[in-house]
């Protein structure tokens, strides 16, 4: 039944809300208010720039933290707390369960991000009314951040299927950072004249999810337009990689004995 992942997703969202995850928005709001008030004093002529930089970076970082820390517990917690026992005795496939958990966290992230985007728009309006058309680019940047978060969540979920939260966090963050640096690593490999290293870094580049693809914060802050092709390609990239990770996670989880 196709509504089963949806039921799991909604319940995962409900759990996050009751765990007071969304309270991070208060912190975000305070930060943006503070920034909006202070930015005029500190930096002249670049109010918009600073607010957009700060807002988008915060959305990205908050989202990342949430994706990793909740993501690594998505499956692990259920196994440890044994809440899965009665759940998996229901007529729901393990893969449907996984999909539902993933969708639930993604929904939480999307809701959280939406509120933050509103906060950013409000701060931007405050420092630089009226809003200009180029400010709509913020939405593009936020969308790409969400793609990034979708990938990170899939990574965290994957590890959650078989390793403890501590290790999963390390692996996920490790891959994330590698993915951010992937381009530089490849460049480094090319600079050395060692064919083995060159080959290895090249392989790494194509293997690891290239998170640097999604970062348009600087461009949007300076008002550059983002080509639609970039957005489309990144969407497909993220979708494919997520599908890959979820498939692997499902394969592992479906064969796993619950303790």
């Amino acid at each position, binding site marked *: 039944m196709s509504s089963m992942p949806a039921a799991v997703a909604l319940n995962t969202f*409900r759990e996050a809300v009751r765990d007071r995850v969304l309270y991070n928005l208060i912190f975000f709001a305070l930060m943006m208010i503070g920034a909006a008030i202070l930015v005029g004093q500190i930096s002249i002529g670049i109010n918009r720039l600073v607010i957009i930089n700060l807002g988008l970076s915060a959305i990205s970082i908050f989202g990342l933290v949430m994706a990793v820390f909740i993501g690594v517990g998505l499956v692990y917690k259920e196994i440890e707390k044994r809440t899965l026992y009665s759940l998996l005795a229901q007529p729901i496939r393990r893969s449907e369960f996984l999909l539902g958990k993933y969708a639930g966290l993604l929904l939480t992230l999307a809701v959280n991000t939406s509120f933050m985007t509103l906060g950013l728009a409000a701060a931007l309006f405050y420092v630089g009314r009226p809003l200009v058309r180029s400010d709509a680019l913020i939405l593009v940047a936020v969308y790409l951040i969400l793609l990034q978060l979708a990938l990170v969540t899939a990574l965290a979920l994957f590890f959650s299927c078989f390793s403890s939260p501590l290790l999963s966090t390390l692996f996920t963050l490790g891959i994330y950072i590698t993915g951010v640096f992937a381009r530089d690593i490849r460049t480094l490999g090319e600079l050395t004249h060692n064919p083995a290293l060159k080959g290895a870094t090249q392989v790494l580049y194509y293997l690891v999810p290239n998170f640097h693809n999604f970062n348009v914060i600087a461009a949007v802050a300076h008002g550059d337009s983002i080509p639609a092709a970039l957005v489309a390609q990144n969407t497909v990239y993220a979708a494919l990689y997520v599908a890959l990770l979820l498939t692997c996670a499902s394969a592992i989880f479906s064969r796993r*004995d*619950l303790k």
Partner: protein
Amino acid sequence: MTTPAIDIAGLTKDYPVGFWRPRMRRSLDHLTLRVEEGEIFGFLGPNGAGKTTTLKLLTGLIFPTLGMAQVRGRPISDIRMHREIGYLPEQPYFYDYLTARELLDYYARFSGFSRAERRERIERLLERVGLAEAGDIQLRKFSKGMLQRVGIAQAVLHDPLVIFLDEPMSGLDPVGRREVRDIILGLKQQGRTVFFSTHILSDAEMICDRVAVLHQGKLLGVGAPSEIVSIEIHAMEILFEMRDGRPLPPHLAATATRTGGRCRIAVPEGSLYETLGQLQACQARILSVAPVRPTLEDYFLRLIGGGEQVSPAVEVRHS
């Protein structure tokens, strides 16, 4: 020959033990068993015998090393089979941030009920397990007994035909245990099959149609409780009181046990009337005279203590 409710054939589970060079520990050894429809089947054994392992295998939480099993004709690997089963885990662990109603509603969605149906079933079940007032309290505030009732509710919510209960009576006070027994009997009346594990033998004795005894992963015996236990009456037990705190007659005092004012003595059937006469002579007040029947417990302890493979007292019935 009708399809059995549960058909287990050679089901085996090995676990790796140890970190560096894991060895395999066999926690279930070639279990073969049939449970017919409408039976209340008791699965007995000491802790660690493999009862929970069996239940987890049947409900798809773990996967068999060898062998297979079917529930109502569908293999345990088929997810559709789950529509027809209900499961109460050994320790009910539920999402503690949900209320009882929310949990039941959540689970009910997996069986595809409409909102109206869900609402109706949940109310009915909460009433039945005695949690009607506690429906909107978060589960983290529930006592163990209340959680057990929620567990039973979610196990029968979707009217499954086969219900697996792992230690359903544990953690309940005598009133609760009676209620659970009544629920199980009620389920049988509706024609459902109940398969439950327990180590409280008196409960099994009371309601089971048949029982199986498991020890160290191996099946030691299957059959009806009455058949397993032979009904030979070996002795009679007399319960009596000495008037005014007088001492017991010397030749009885050796074999009688005394707790407070009550005395108990077991005598061979042949000496019953003689002993009664002696008690009458010292003006003891007779409270009861009853046969000493070996219980399931005795059989059980004998099996376990003996550690031998004992063939079933009765052959498994075919119908």
